[in-house]
């Protein structure tokens, strides 16, 4: 098989394959991935909403809380079971989830998410590591 | 000029909205005026003998007849020929595969702009062939058929190819705008090669090719007649300047071999350009010769097949060697320079004799480094260099009645990039020069609609339609600046722009660049001129 301009074309193909196979090389030799283990609160078994809800929609909840409390002056949240909570990141959420590095950052780092909570809020203990 | 509809009617007939019928279902319109006459039997036979494997199926036939007398295995010949070319030309294979039909090219073709015929959109012209590529060579096309734009080779497809690949002048304007550089000229060349294999051809191309092979030029001028014509022009120059020039023909031992398209020696206004060359050569005392054997700069072989192009082009180096010329000076021509710039050395570089050297202007000492390999210089480059060094004694006032514009020919524009050299020369010999609108000049220039062997009168309506963009741009500067002359460096232009200007912008004269140079040059020992090269009175010399 004769290729014309083979040198340049093969070089191009190597770059192409390199780009597309780089993720495999990057992960090579590392332990199999599993989702981060989060440090769960010791004295509380149930969060504000169900685990599934919190996993996928916590950011929406936090966003809503901010809007309702700061913009509408409504400070009490009633969850799906009728239980009441004060809508406050620091007073409610972080009462149990005291350690940002051991809780929030675990997933956020893996998913490369940079929430802007901490643009305004004071970061808790965990940040200082 | 054949009877065709009036410009106004033609304009009214143009509709860019495509028809409701899918293009694959549109019938072929093979009425007279839609195609150029097929090649004469004896021309095909002669060429089959001269360059085997390029042409086939010699016969007398008529495209208007339902039966084109194709060989029984024509389909096999075309499909096999197609496959062979996919393997020989990466361009073809790539252009068949990667078009995304974005439509950027659609309204770039002069034939589309003048006709609104959807098959004149470059994308669709290529699709005529691409559909066969899918249908014959790809699995998806074979299975899914028409939905994916695939179809198989049939006689109607061949007829369609004949109609539309002879409505492409290989001007490459579409290629400039294509995001992948897909070049319809390349597709048209391949399609024409395939058509030639089964004897589908036009006389306006094959007769010049046959002539050029035998007599050395497209027009079939035999050597003794060529000499007569040159003598005749020397006589005219004497009448105009009072000076008799010596024009060497077929002489050995000169430094430069000068080759120009034979259109320049045959009919006006080309002959005035030719006289301009001769006057300039005399003015600078160039050591040159003409050749009757290589008396053609153009190469209609380019419009048939790469082998044919090579065979015709080979004469240039062969003759330079026989005559002992060190380099070749080329005249004003368009497609000639596509061949010289992009094909010549690749095809025939091995024919160059050891006496050939990098061209040096003997008057100015300028080394033409850009022609170091081909040893061939365009006369506009040569003259620009002479003028820049002040080696020509010019009297611009002789052209003071001229308000000029400049037509870039497609090939020197998009297959070479020669824009500023001729403009510099033009500005040095005329006072009044106005450019046509930006989208119609330089690399975006429009074809005269007679390139690639389509400058024949039986398709005059197609030519005038294709001439609309150029004609309208010309009309624009006529109205705005009073332009009365369009200059160009292309022999086909000099023939085709005349009817085009008469039709779309009446009253504009077409000239070659060196006609204007010849008018302006003051020769040593000449008499006071009263007339220009056309033997019309010079400005201020008109008799009351």
């Amino acid at each position, binding site marked *: 098989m004769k290729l014309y301009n083979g040198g340049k074309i093969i070089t191009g193909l190597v770059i192409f394959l390199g780009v597309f196979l780089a993720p495999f090389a990057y992960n090579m030799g590392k332990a199999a991935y599993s989702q981060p283990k989060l440090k769960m609160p010791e004295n509380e078994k149930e969060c504000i909403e169900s685990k599934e809800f919190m996993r996928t929609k916590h950011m929406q909840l936090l966003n809503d809380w901010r809007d309702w409390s700061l913009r509408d002056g409504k400070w009490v949240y009633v969850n799906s079971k009728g239980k009441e909570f004060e809508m406050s990141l620091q007073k409610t959420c972080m009462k149990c989830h005291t350690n940002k590095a051991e809780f929030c950052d675990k997933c956020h780092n893996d998913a490369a998410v940079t929430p802007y909570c901490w643009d305004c809020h004071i970061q808790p203990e965990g940040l200082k590591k | 000029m054949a009877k065709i509809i009036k410009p106004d009617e033609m304009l009214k007939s143009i509709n860019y909205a495509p028809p409701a019928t899918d293009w694959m279902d549109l019938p072929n319109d093979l009425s007279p005026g839609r195609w150029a006459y097929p090649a004469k039997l004896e021309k095909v036979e002669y060429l089959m003998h001269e360059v085997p494997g390029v042409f086939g199926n010699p016969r007398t036939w008529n495209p208007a007849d339902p039966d084109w007398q194709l060989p029984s295995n024509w389909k096999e010949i075309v499909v096999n020929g197609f496959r062979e070319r996919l393997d020989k030309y990466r361009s073809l294979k790539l252009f068949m595969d990667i078009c995304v039909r974005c439509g950027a090219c659609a309204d770039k073709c002069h034939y589309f702009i003048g006709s609104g015929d959807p098959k004149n959109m470059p994308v669709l012209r290529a699709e005529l062939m691409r559909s066969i590529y899918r249908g014959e060579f790809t699995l998806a096309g074979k299975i899914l058929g028409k939905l994916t734009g695939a179809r198989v080779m049939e006689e109607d497809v061949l007829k369609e190819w004949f109609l539309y690949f002879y409505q492409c002048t290989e001007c490459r304007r579409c290629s400039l705008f294509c995001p992948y550089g897909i070049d319809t000229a390349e597709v048209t060349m391949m399609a024409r090669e395939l058509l030639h294999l089964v004897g589908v051809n036009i006389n306006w191309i094959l007769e010049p090719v046959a002539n050029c092979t035998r007599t050395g030029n497209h027009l079939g001028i035999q050597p003794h007649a060529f000499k007569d014509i040159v003598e005749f022009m020397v006589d005219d120059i004497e009448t105009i300047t009072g000076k008799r020039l010596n024009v060497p023909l077929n002489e050995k031992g000169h430094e430069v071999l000068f080759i120009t398209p034979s259109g320049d020696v045959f009919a006006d206004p080309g002959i005035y350009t030719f006289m301009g060359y001769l006057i300039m050569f005399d003015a600078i005392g160039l050591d040159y010769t003409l050749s009757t054997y290589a008396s053609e700069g153009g190469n209609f072989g380019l419009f048939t097949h790469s082998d044919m192009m090579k065979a015709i082009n080979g004469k240039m180096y062969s003759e330079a060697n026989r005559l002992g010329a060190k380099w070749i000076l080329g005249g004003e021509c368009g497609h000639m320079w596509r061949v010289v*710039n992009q094909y010549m050395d690749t095809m025939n570089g091995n024919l160059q004799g050891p006496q050939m050297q990098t061209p040096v202007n003997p008057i100015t000492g300028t080394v033409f480094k850009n022609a170091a390999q081909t040893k061939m210089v365009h006369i506009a480059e040569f003259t620009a260099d002479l003028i820049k060094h002040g080696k020509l004694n010019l009297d611009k006032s002789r052209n003071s009645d001229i308000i000029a514009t400049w037509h870039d020919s497609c090939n020197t524009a998009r297959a070479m*990039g020669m824009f500023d050299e001729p403009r510099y020369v033009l500005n040095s010999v005329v006072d009044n020069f106005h450019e046509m609108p930006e989208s119609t000049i*330089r690399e975006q220039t429009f074809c005269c609609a007679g390139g690639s062997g389509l400058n024949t009168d039986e398709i005059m309506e197609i030519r005038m339609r294709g001439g609309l963009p150029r004609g309208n741009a010309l009309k624009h500067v006529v109205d705005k600046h009073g332009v009365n002359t369009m200059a160009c460096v292309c022999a086909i232009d000099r023939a085709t722009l005349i009817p085009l200007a008469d039709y779309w912008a009446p009253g504009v004269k077409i000239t070659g660049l060196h006609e204007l140079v010849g008018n302006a040059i003051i020769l040593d020992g000449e008499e006071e001129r009263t007339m220009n090269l056309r033997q019309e009175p010079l400005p201020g010399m008109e008799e009351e």
Partner: protein
Amino acid sequence: MKAIFSLLMVLALVVIATVGAGAAKMQTIFAYCIPGTAFVIFLVGFVCKIISWAKSPVPFRIPTTGGQQQSLDWIPQNKWDNPSTGPQTFMRMVLEVLTFRSLFRNTKVVLKHDDGKNPIVAYVSAKWLWLFAILFHYGFLIVAVRHLRLFLQPVPAPLAFLDWSDSVLQILTPAIYISDLLLLTGLTMLLARRFIDAKVRYISLVNDYFPLFLILAIALSGVYMRYIVKVDVMSIKDVAMGLATFNFKVPAGVDVSFFVHIFLVSTLLVYFPFSKLMHMGGVFLSPTRNMPNDTRMVHYENVWNNPAIKPHSYEAYEDDFREPMFEAGLPLDKSPEDAA
């Protein structure tokens, strides 16, 4: 008709994935087998296609020259549109590939022939196609690169930065990605153009509509996952990392929309090498763009050049015309007596 057919095909793919991964519970197949196979087909198919082009030589140097050539020293050359050296050609290609320079030239023809007025053929600037193409391609590129956060662990800092800057608008929760907007705008406009511009509609095939609808469906399913159902990203990262480390775990807690998304992407990967989408590789190989305009300066070799093709010789020419040439007094290599 062609558009509807393409749309139906894409909808069928959505249904297949919904039923297959949702109702029929073939989640492992949809999560690993299909995407893995599709990725291999994409890579192998892409390479094979390029190789098939590489097997055909480029017999002639045929750049389309878009500016002043290199000639006399005092005439400025347009180096990017009419390159004569390798580096200049490289620049032309860089501009072509990264900025779609040829498309940027685009004009639209307008013909006016009102009664009593001179007809005008005008060429108006038409950069819309360029704009849509740029929006779409760069949008798609950023979206694709962003997805690497799911395939790499730990996520490299530049990717995290890309994600942060892409969502810097901080609109909606999760924050909207600018690249999503670019991609969707570009796609919609390109699709709309195919419907609205009669000429483009006339030349469009299933081959043109299908990939547009397919990519649109991919983008919309992605949007649906992120902004509407808000899928559990971490369990998706589990699956993605499984693919990237060949460590396959049964997917858990993944919404069916993910399977639709990944199935559509797999279809795109498989379709890619066999379609016009190969313009991605082809643009680098186009002989009218990737070659310098230098064949008058240096020799270029055609591998199949046939030296046996010779011009009709001067000897044959003189034999043909010796008598009249002699009578006209033209120089001859052989006089009539010698030839006799």
